[in-house]
């Protein structure tokens, strides 16, 4: 059962999506936001132009963090590892944002992804409940609390990735 009415989530997202669309336009990314389903898709490229498709779902946002995962770049289906970019090696920013863990076998491991929390079978029981997502405390880890900031961080991870996690079929 949803914690927030969809209308409330839409109102909150309106401003953030405006900023996200402006960011995507500046960097020449294709961003599609579906207000009805409270979801978005962002087409990204890895090194060499390898296509990736990021999907976000915003049910109960911002009480709960979004659900972020990479999807098949053509079909848009959740296919697990083959949809995800692998971290560069050597990795330039401490610990990688995308790791092999969680219920889908791979996860964008940041406070701003619902799937990283143990409540959603993610690796982080130490973060407590999902509603803690905006209070990660002081840490060297990445932090984002607007949609555009989340997109920017994930796009960076894709742009300098080390290829695909698994072969795309």
């Amino acid at each position, binding site marked *: 059962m949803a914690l927030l009415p969809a209308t409330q989530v839409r109102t909150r997202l309106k401003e*953030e999506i*405006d*900023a*996200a669309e*402006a*960011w995507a336009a*500046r*960097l020449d990314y294709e961003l599609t936001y579906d207000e009805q389903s409270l979801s978005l898709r962002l087409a990204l490229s890895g090194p060499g132009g390898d296509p990736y498709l990021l999907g976000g779902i915003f049910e109960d946002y911002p009480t709960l963090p979004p659900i972020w995962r990479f999807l098949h770049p053509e079909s848009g289906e959740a296919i697990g590892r083959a949809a995800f970019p692998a971290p560069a090696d050597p*990795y*330039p*920013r*401490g*610990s*990688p*944002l*995308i*790791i092999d863990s969680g219920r889908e076998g791979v996860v*964008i*491991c*940041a*406070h701003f992804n619902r799937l*990283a929390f143990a409540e959603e079978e993610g690796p*982080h029981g130490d973060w407590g409940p999902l509603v803690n997502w905006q209070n990660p405390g*002081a*840490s*060297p*880890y*990445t*932090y*984002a*609390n*607007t949609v*555009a*900031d989340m*997109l*920017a*961080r994930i*796009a*960076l*991870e894709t*742009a*300098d990735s080390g290829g695909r996690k698994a072969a795309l079929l």
Partner: protein
Amino acid sequence: MNDEHGKKPKEKKIEVTVFAPRATEPKKFNWAAKLTVGAAAAEAAEAFGYAPGQPTLARGEHTLDREETLHAAGVKDGDKLELVDIGGGV
């Protein structure tokens, strides 16, 4: 070192337009060319209302080294740069 008139030479300043993902409008900054990218990015991040983190500046998808000075990173007067957090995953 003072110049021939006994005055300190003016520090070279560059004007940079910074875009932040969360904002639809950019902000302009006048920074000394010898300022590090990390210090400039931190100032920009604060101006845009970000909590302390690991911000840096980027040209498109290319992030600049936070340890370099703006000059060494090739930042020039009139440049337009993006602000991005480069903290690691967890």
